[in-house]
């Protein structure tokens, strides 16, 4: 639940999602759910020429299970806060 809560705080920010098939998509985080499925708006594909089928896509839903990395905007991680939340979760909330 911790990372779900964390990603919810990033809604509206610009992130880059790298998938297990190496496709990398930058876009505004629209929503996230408990499976860490991600919805992005105003997307652009990092290597557009390699993925011509994405040219006509402006918004997308990415299944959580195919995500490899999420690149976050700088300064979006408050380590202290995450530390505390992690400890609290480890204690069982």
């Amino acid at each position: 639940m911790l990372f779900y809560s964390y990603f919810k705080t990033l809604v509206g920010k610009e992130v880059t999602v790298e998938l297990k098939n190496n496709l990398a998509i930058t876009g505004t985080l629209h929503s996230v759910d408990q499976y860490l499925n991600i919805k992005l708006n105003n997307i652009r594909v990092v290597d557009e020429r390699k993925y011509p089928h994405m040219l006509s896509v402006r918004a997308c839903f990415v299944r959580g299970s195919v995500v490899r990395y999420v690149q976050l905007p700088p300064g979006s991680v408050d380590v202290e806060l995450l530390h505390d939340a992690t400890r609290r979760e480890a204690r069982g909330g």
Partner: protein
Amino acid sequence: MDENITLPPNIEDIPPPGLALVEELDKLLLVQLRDGRKIIGTLRSFDQFANLVLSDSKERIIVAEQYAEIPLGLHVVRGENVVLLGELDAAREPPPGLQLVSEAAIKQAQRAEREADKLKGTLRSRFFDFLDDI
């Protein structure tokens, strides 16, 4: 930084996972599958695993600057094979800069591309074998 993360989540406040697709119902979507195929269809139903029902679906094959669409009809896609669902922008559809060709033509182009890739692979492995030998 939002303080939400420090609050213990209230179970009633959390929407069930996979619900985000409600907004896409009855829209024309591009579904990318794990094997690299792209299917275009209207989303009729889904569940929490992203199992999908697509009506009037077609597979879109793109090779270099050419593309073709193969009609598939009604399809159920098992969620584990779904990589991405893209909302198609009507203004950029069909994709700009691509030329529509027949199914036979695209299949041939696909075969040619696969052969070229294979050849590249063999040349590369021979080159590395050669490096190993010296």
